[in-house]
């Protein structure tokens, strides 16, 4: 495939043009083009938050585009729901495997389009076809009547794939399929992908592993900040360096606050020593001094969030210790909170907020008991404390009585920060503080975090966006596969080097 383009004359099977997707308060996709030909492996590349997931959800019928068109065989189509996508021959295999553990292999494969005559399922037909598909996938050992829950992750993926094949899919979208597999299983997956393309099926393949893309991909489309920055590059003609540059060269420069530097004699506030959590991560040590921001950089699944949650006591560590102000922390979140540690979790809505409660009750969720007198709530004082923070953080709209659900992502994040400001924190753990926050509000959040540090807090920031970590933090820990592979001042490392570090060794 070193020649210019072997598929030059081939009509594209699937074409997406000018796709825009807006969510309340954020523009996830801002003009994306994608062109996929039959029989090719088309890789979709981009950093976390670049819009890959949103794009494939539009293809799968889970999201509706705000603007743009989708053409199949050069005919415009709409994909109102997942069933419609399957009818058009577009099958998606998600990262989180969407198989039903309690059902058998055959039942899973024919879930939603059961083979039946007059309401009576044709079990033997389903079993026979399942056997055929498994044969084709090179996994005859996965028998139709096995319970899917007993299969390993790789087996479940095969079932997921078999389901796509059972519907005569012409386009198969795979979202980081190799993330859950070991290297032998990855090899098998690659073989299956090649067989599919040999049959004329187009595969849209998402992966963070550049090496894998080299081995498997035909062409590449690169996404960044919701836009296509390069379409249909030939894998063979594009050096890795160029790809990393395309992924990282940023359209929007964020304004990061100045780093005043941590005073020489600043006391260590948070001391983490040899912390471990089963096989998720181990031997993580870090010290954060008053006024210092330490960033954890790494890919999704590298263990970053788990490290924060374990420091916080939300997960029970299997080794190591956490000290705050020199005192060893008892396990349990309430002990951490009492010691002045606060966490702004990754999933604001599911882990952080009471969406149907007013803003002030969200802000005082950690402090209402302290504000109360003898068990009696003092809502007047709660409102006053909340209002003070709402004004200080410029949270909009400035009403403390609105339900948290009605706030934009950036303002929800401010409400969470306000919670810990009212509480008064010595250690602040921030997991993806700008996820789902629009560009304008980001700068505000950054300067807010810096101000907290300047006021003497020890801050740990986790982010998938490497420039964010590098721009905001004083010191950086690079996490890969549950291990800290690098530690140093944020100024002395660039995004390219971090990507090199996290992608190194994680090759299939």
């Amino acid at each position, binding site marked *: 495939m070193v020649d210019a383009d072997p598929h030059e004359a081939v009509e594209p099977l699937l074409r997406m043009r000018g796709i825009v997707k807006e969510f*309340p308060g954020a523009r996830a996709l801002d003009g994306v083009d994608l062109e996929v030909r039959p029989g090719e492996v088309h890789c979709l590349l981009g950093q976390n938050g670049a819009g890959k997931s949103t794009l494939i959800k539009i293809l799968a019928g889970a999201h509706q585009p705000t603007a743009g068109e989708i053409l199949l065989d050069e005919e415009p189509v709409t994909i109102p729901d997942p069933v419609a996508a399957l009818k058009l021959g577009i099958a998606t295999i998600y990262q989180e495997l969407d198989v039903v553990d309690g059902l058998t292999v055959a039942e899973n494969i024919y879930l939603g389009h059961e083979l039946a005559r007059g309401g009576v399922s044709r079990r033997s037909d389903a079993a026979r076809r399942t056997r055929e598909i498994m044969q084709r996938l090179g996994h005859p050992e996965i028998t139709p009547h096995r319970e899917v829950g007993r299969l390993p992750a790789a087996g479940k993926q095969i079932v997921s794939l078999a389901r796509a094949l059972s519907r005569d899919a012409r386009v198969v979208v795979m979202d980081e399929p190799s993330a859950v597999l070991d290297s032998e299983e990855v090899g098998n997956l690659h073989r299956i992908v090649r067989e599919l393309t040999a049959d004329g099926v187009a595969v849209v393949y998402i992966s963070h592993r550049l090496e894998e893309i080299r081995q498997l991909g035909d062409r590449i489309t690169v996404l960044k900040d919701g836009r296509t920055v390069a379409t249909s590059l030939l894998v063979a003609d594009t050096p890795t360096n160029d790809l990393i540059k395309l992924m990282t060269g940023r359209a929007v420069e964020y304004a990061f606050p100045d780093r005043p530097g941590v005073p020489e004699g600043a006391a260590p506030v948070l001391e983490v020593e040899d912390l471990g959590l089963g096989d998720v991560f181990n031997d993580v040590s870090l010290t954060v001094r008053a006024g210092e921001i330490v960033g954890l950089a790494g890919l999704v699944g590298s263990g970053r969030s788990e490290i924060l949650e374990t420091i*916080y006591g*939300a997960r029970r560590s299997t080794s190591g210790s956490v000290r705050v102000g020199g005192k060893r922390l008892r396990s349990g*979140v*309430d002990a*951490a*909170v*009492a010691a002045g540690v606060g*966490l702004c*979790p990754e999933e604001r809505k*599911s*882990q*952080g*907020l*009471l*969406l*149907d*409660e*007013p803003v002030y*009750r969200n802000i005082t*969720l*950690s402090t*209402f*008991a302290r504000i*109360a007198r003898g*068990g*009696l*709530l003092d809502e007047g004082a709660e409102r006053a404390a909340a209002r003070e923070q709402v004004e200080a953080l410029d949270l909009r709209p400035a*009403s403390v*009585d*609105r*339900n948290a*659900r*009605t706030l934009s992502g950036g303002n929800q994040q401010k409400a969470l920060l306000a*919670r810990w400001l009212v509480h008064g924190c010595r250690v602040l753990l921030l997991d993806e503080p700008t996820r789902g926050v629009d560009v304008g509000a980001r700068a505000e959040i950054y300067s807010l975090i810096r101000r907290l540090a300047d006021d003497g807090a020890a801050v740990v920031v986790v982010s998938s966006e490497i420039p964010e970590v590098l721009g905001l933090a004083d010191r950086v820990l690079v996490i890969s596969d549950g291990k800290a592979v690098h530690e140093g001042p944020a100024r002395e490392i660039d995004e390219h080097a971090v990507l090199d570090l996290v992608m190194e060794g994680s090759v299939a």
Partner: protein
Amino acid sequence: MSARSGLMGPALRMGGLVFALILLVVVGAVTAGERFMSPGNLTTILSLAAVTGVVSIGMTFVITSGGIDLSVGAVLGLASIWASTLSTQYMAEDYGWWVIVVTALAVGLAAGLVNGALIAYGKVPAFIATLAMLAAARGLAEIIAGRRTQIVDVEPFFDVFQARPLGLPTIVWIFVVVAAAGWFLLNRTTFGRRTVAVGGNPEASRLAGIKIKRHTLYLYGLAGLTAGIGAVIMLARTTAGSSTHGTLLELDAIAAVVVGGTLLAGGRGTITGTVLGVLIFSTLTNIFVLNNLDSSVQAIAKGAIIVVAVLLQQWFASREKATST
């Protein structure tokens, strides 16, 4: 928009319940006339509402926190038996009527704490833990009582609980006091705030530092305690302890709570709504009895009320969401 619907929503819901209650009263007055509208009959309605009412207050807390307690009826039966055994009655003769009360409350509280411990620390789903307690408490009550009804013969007990201070029976006053205390606890205390927070988002509550296990323990203890209070009322009303007291009471309580507007999924609870729900059901029962109607038809009417109330709730909820985004 949302601020308005946030305030109007509950008011509208309460308005609907009050309207339904008034409608029932009109139906009662038209179909049964004087027999329905007499002060004596209204007292009867309230007395009948007292047991379900008290238990429903505890149930409101459990459901608001996102849980469920299927054992309250059985625990009430067990408490009524334990508080009316011969030895309890002898002690009551010696020390005073309060021995019966304390025994019933202690049994209810203990059973509730066992539920809570299983759910919070044993990680048993609330549905299963309280279902097991339902079976076990009934069984234990039958063993203690030997399947016999235990007549209470402690005069001072009835002197207190069958009295009519300020014109209403003591048991009605107990319902009033428990409801008022429940309202205060849910709306004005840290305990209430924790209950709503845990029901609204347990993970967020935990990550904010709320001790949700301990709170869960207390919540089921509270539900058990109200079952104990219900047992005292039952002893006063029927003058006997029985292992069949409170049969299917858990369903009446859940129905009243849900009809009242507390979300079965947790995160929002209303004591006022629960009280109205209890009154609606007991008025309905009363109307059917006064008109000599089949109790099977009554069951159908009850089912219809539950379905309509929940449909209305969902309609309100979807409208609220539509206006707030």
